[in-house]
Structure formats: C-alpha cells, structure tokens
C-alpha cells in the first residue's frame, strides 16, 4: 500500500490559502467513490444472478469495480491528508472558470440533439454551433470578429457537408437546405 500512496515530491508547494483547501479534488474523490460503489453493487448483483467462475464473464467486473472502489478510497485519503498536489494548485488559479466549459457543453449537447431530432440539417446546425462556440471561447464581441466567425462557420460546414456526402459517401442530414 505504501507504493500505491506514494506521491512524487512536488516542486514548489504553495502555502495553504486562507479559507482552507479547495473543495474540487474532494468532491471529485467523493463522486469517483460513489460511482465505483454503484458499479460494484451492479457487478455483485450480476454475479449473484449467474454465479462466478474463474473462466466466466462475472469475475472481471468484480475485480475492476472492486479495485476502483479501493483506489478511489486511497485517492480520497490523499485529498484529505493535506498533501498539496498539482491539482489543487490548478484549482487555486484565479482565472479558472466553470462557466465557459459549462456553456460549451450545453452548446455541444444542443448541437447533437438538433442534428438528430430536428429537420434543420447539418449545415445550419453546425454553423450555428460554431458561431456559439467561438463566441464562448473568444473574449472580444467585436462586430468584425463575429462576422469572421459567421463566414468561417458557413464555409466550414458547407465544405464538410459537400466533402463527406460527395467524396466520402458518408451521409449527413441535409435538412432544410436544398443540397
């Protein structure tokens, strides 16, 4: 177990920030433990149903999810043990923002759903997503920049659509445009 919990000595370790240590790694550790435990329960149920043999399909899930839980517990201990890790330093970075990645993720999911469940089609959906993502990632809402994004978005999505449907024989939803 000593080998498992060994942490490479970190280079420069910042002093403890006022207000205590960041929560991020601990929440992550808790989520990882819970996920592992849930999957272990699932593996045990499946194993109880069909029985475990060394050459059967139920042993590996038990080993993997069991190992997951043990390692997640070790990680949890590390995050509480007061050892500053690279991760906590990242967490401390003042510029770290959750809003932009969350917005990007929402845009991605929306994009995928529009592609699948509406008749909008590949080109308009992709162009709209591109502009939204570029806006989220960019910092200057200047008119010239937005125009650039729109032009690139339309060009890129048309080019992809034509290349994939005409040359690669991979179908993409045509949607509302008469392509």
């Amino acid at each position: 177990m000593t080998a498992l919990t060994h942490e490479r000595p970190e280079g420069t370790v910042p002093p403890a920030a006022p207000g205590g240590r960041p929560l991020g790694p601990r929440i992550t550790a808790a989520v990882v433990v819970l996920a592992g435990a849930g999957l272990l329960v699932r593996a045990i149920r499946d194993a109880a149903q069909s029985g475990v043999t060394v050459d059967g399909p139920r042993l590996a899930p038990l080993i993997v999810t069991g190992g997951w839980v043990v390692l997640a517990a070790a990680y949890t201990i590390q995050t509480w043990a007061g050892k500053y890790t690279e991760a906590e330093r990242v967490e401390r970075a003042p510029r770290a923002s959750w809003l932009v990645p969350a917005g990007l993720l929402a845009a991605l999911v929306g994009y995928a759903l529009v592609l699948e469940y509406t008749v909008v089609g590949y080109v308009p959906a992709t162009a709209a997503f591109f502009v939204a993502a570029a806006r989220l990632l960019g910092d200057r809402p200047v008119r010239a920049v937005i125009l650039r994004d729109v032009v690139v978005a339309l060009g890129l999505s048309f080019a992809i659509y034509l290349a994939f449907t005409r040359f690669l024989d991979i179908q993409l939803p045509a949607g509302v445009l008469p392509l």
Partner: protein
Amino acid sequence: MSALLDGFAAVLTPENLLFAVIGVTVGTLVGVLPGIGPALTIALLLPLTFNLDSPTGALIMFAGIYAGAMYGGSTTSILLNTPGESASVATSIEGYQMARRGRARAALATAAIGSFVAGTISTVLLSVLAAPMARFAVMFRAADYFALAVLALVAVTALVGRSMVRGLLSLTLGLFLGLVGIDSLTGQARFTFGSVNLLDGVNIVVVIVGLFAIGETLHLASRPTDVPSTVAPLEPPRGFAWLTREDWRRSWRPWLRGTALGFPFGALPSGGAELPTFLSYTYESRRSPHRDEFGTGAIEGVAGPEAANNASFSGVLVPLLTLGIPTSATAAVMLAAFQIFNVQPGPDLFDEGGALVWALIASLYVGNVLLLLLNLPLIRLWVKVLRIPRPVLYASILVFATLGVYAVSGSVFQVLLAYAIGVAGFFMRRYDFPIAPVILGLILGPMMEEQFRRALSLSNGDFGVFVSRPLTVVLLSLAVLALVVPYAPRLLAHGRADRVPAKVTLGEDD
C-alpha cells in the same frame, strides 16, 4: 528481404503514393493544430479511409497520417511552445527558445531531418526484427498473452504521470469501459444498463475523441489566458541551407543517440515515447559540449528528443504488429484502425497477410521521405495554420470531433457518450489524472480478460498455468518490477525538466 521489396512494389503505385501524399499532408495539417496529438489525429481522420476498398491503401494513408501528425506536433512545440502530446514536451523546451532567438528554421530542420534519420533507421530495425519476433510470438500461449497485457498496462500506468493512485484510477476507468457490452466468450451483456446502444461496447474512437478533443477543449476553456498565443516568427530564409555546417556537426550524434534510446523503449512496453524523449533531453543537456546553451536554445536538445520520439514509434510497432499488443495510445488507435479493415495484428498476420504488413512497413519508409520532401518547403503554410485565432480553432476542433464520432457511428447516442467522456476528461486534466492508461485499459483490458479465461479454461481452473512456463513467469515478474521501481528513471527524467520554466502541456498522448 524479398517480402520487403514486394511491399515496396505494392506501395510505389501512383494510386498508393497519392494516398501517402494525402496522408502526410492531412496528418501534418491536423497535427500542427495546437493540442492535437497523433492519437487524436488518427481518430479524427479515420472516416477518410472508410471509402477505400483496399486495406493496403488505407494502411498507407495511416502511416502517412501518423508521420505527418508527429512532424506537425514538433512544429507546434517549436513555434508555439504548446506540445500536443507529452512526447513533444522535451522538444519544445529548447525548440521554442531557438525559435525565439531567430533560429526557428534551424530548429524545425533539425527536428525534421532528425525525425527522418530516426524514422529510417528504426524502420530498418523494425524490418529486421519483425519477422523473427513474429516467429517467436507463435510460441506465446494464452497465459503469456495475459502476462504481456498485464505488463504493458502496469508499465504504462507506472511510468506515465506523477501519482500511482491517479494513474491506476485512470487505468481502472479504461478497464471498466472495456467491460461494457457483450462478453466475447459467452455473449452475456455487462454494464449495458439495458441500453441496446451499449451492447457493442464503447468504441475507442468515441473515447479518444471524448478525452482528447472534448476534454481538452473544455479544459482550455476553463483557463482562458493560460495559452501563449504568440507564434515565434520565422526568420527570412537563407536559400536552401536551413542548417549550417555547425548545426549539422552538433545534430548528428544526438539524432543517433535519440534513435538508440527511442527504438528499444518503444519496443518494450514502457509507456511510449515520453520516457525516451526525456532521457535523450537529459543526456544531451548533461553531456553536450554546449551544455551552457541549454535553456537558451541548444540544437542538441531538439535533435535528440525528436529523434527519440520518432524512433520510439517504429519500436512500438514491433509488439503491435507481431503480438497485437498496443503499448501507447497512438498504437491503440492504429490497432482499432486495422480492425476496421479486418486486419488482426499478431503472429498470424505475417503468415496470412504478410504482403499487407510489408506494405505497411514499406509505406513507413515512403512516408518518411515524403515528409522531408513536402514539409520543410511548406513550412510557411503550417505557420499560417498556427496563426488561426483560438476561438475559431477550438470551435473547429469541436465540430470535427462531433463529426468524427457521428461519421464513424451514425448515432447521436455515441456523440453524447463522447461528450460525457469528455466531461470526465475535463476533470481528469484539471486534477492531473493521466489519459493514456484509459485508452490502453480500454483496448488491452478485454484482451487480457479473454486470455486469462482461455488459459484457465484450458487448465481446468488451475492457476498453476500462470507460473508453469518460464516466459509467463518472466513477464509477470517484470510487471511487478515495473510497479515497484518506476521511480528511479522517472526522477532522472523529470528532475532535469524542473530546471526549465513550467511548461504548458496542452495535451497528453502516449
């Protein structure tokens, strides 16, 4: 030897040469994009080959894509100081300093020529070693394959990344993803949660795109100003002489030493190119007569690691082609690509599909030559790619990532799964979990389990099968060894890197 000549005959047709040229060019184009390493490049470009009828053409294109992606990665490291993979970090240390001091062309040239030299020498080694190795591999039984997979997994996890616990957790995630779907031996469903979409398991392209493209972009988006956006300028050309006589004199030994380090480390399951590139950097920075220039742009510090990086990939092909065991994330994608064309690497490949293997090896030579011919003259084009504004670049990466998964699977479920894995990848990057063990766990886990069960069912459940053959015992002992003593070489490799300013590692690969 005649088999290799046949391979060249197969490759050197106008059509296949065209595939090689397209592969090298597109591979470089995508590989140059900051944050995109070879594994993601191949995963994203897989759809390009779906329409090809012959597996030969597709494999040649992959070889070109791979070579181009590697070269593109070194360009980004040198000009932008944003290595797209951990194996390019060593290159970026001196390379970026050289570029800042107006020696960008020399740095790019020593990287390109070093890659060519290392790629050619190590492909020769691969040609010589592959066939005997395949004959040896025929003796491998199920228990040996199991032990070898264990060794590969343990070595990669122990040698890459900073924390054993986080590395093993990453590995566990990969092993779990590998369990999802129908069990190959009994047909029973595992962890499908009642969804038909999961019966076929989790596709490696989905995982790679999720972890490398989506996770990476989300991570970047959370740290808006951490990215250096200045591209080091190219100095005006001085005719064709990219390297001065002095540069050549200082480069050739590091090229050869880098090759000598890279190939064996690649061929052994040791976590791909990260270790040999840092070992090469360390060696050059200590032994070079120009030690004092290190940190301010010493050409040896570019020549050695770049050669090691390239040589290690040909080394990785030895276990991949002869045993079917991938030992780096890039090799795992290559394996997936082979399987799309029903090519199953392993000892049999040299019997049944021998022509195909030799065509692939021949195309590695061709790819190397094309790279040198195409890329140095086109450097201005690649620099333009680097100047793409960040929002446009990452919005495009997200579009291509979605497209890659959608085109491979045709299913929005898989796209959403890739996004979910991307969220996991975002947290993994944020909290410093290594990515490569996930990929290898996903690919090697099912292989390992199948061989384990096969061995035990042949032995009627007797675990003695894992200690009865010397080969199995040796491989398992090496795995234990890798778990216990990974620290000495790692401290050697990383201790030196601590001296240089903190690096922004945008992506991580093998």
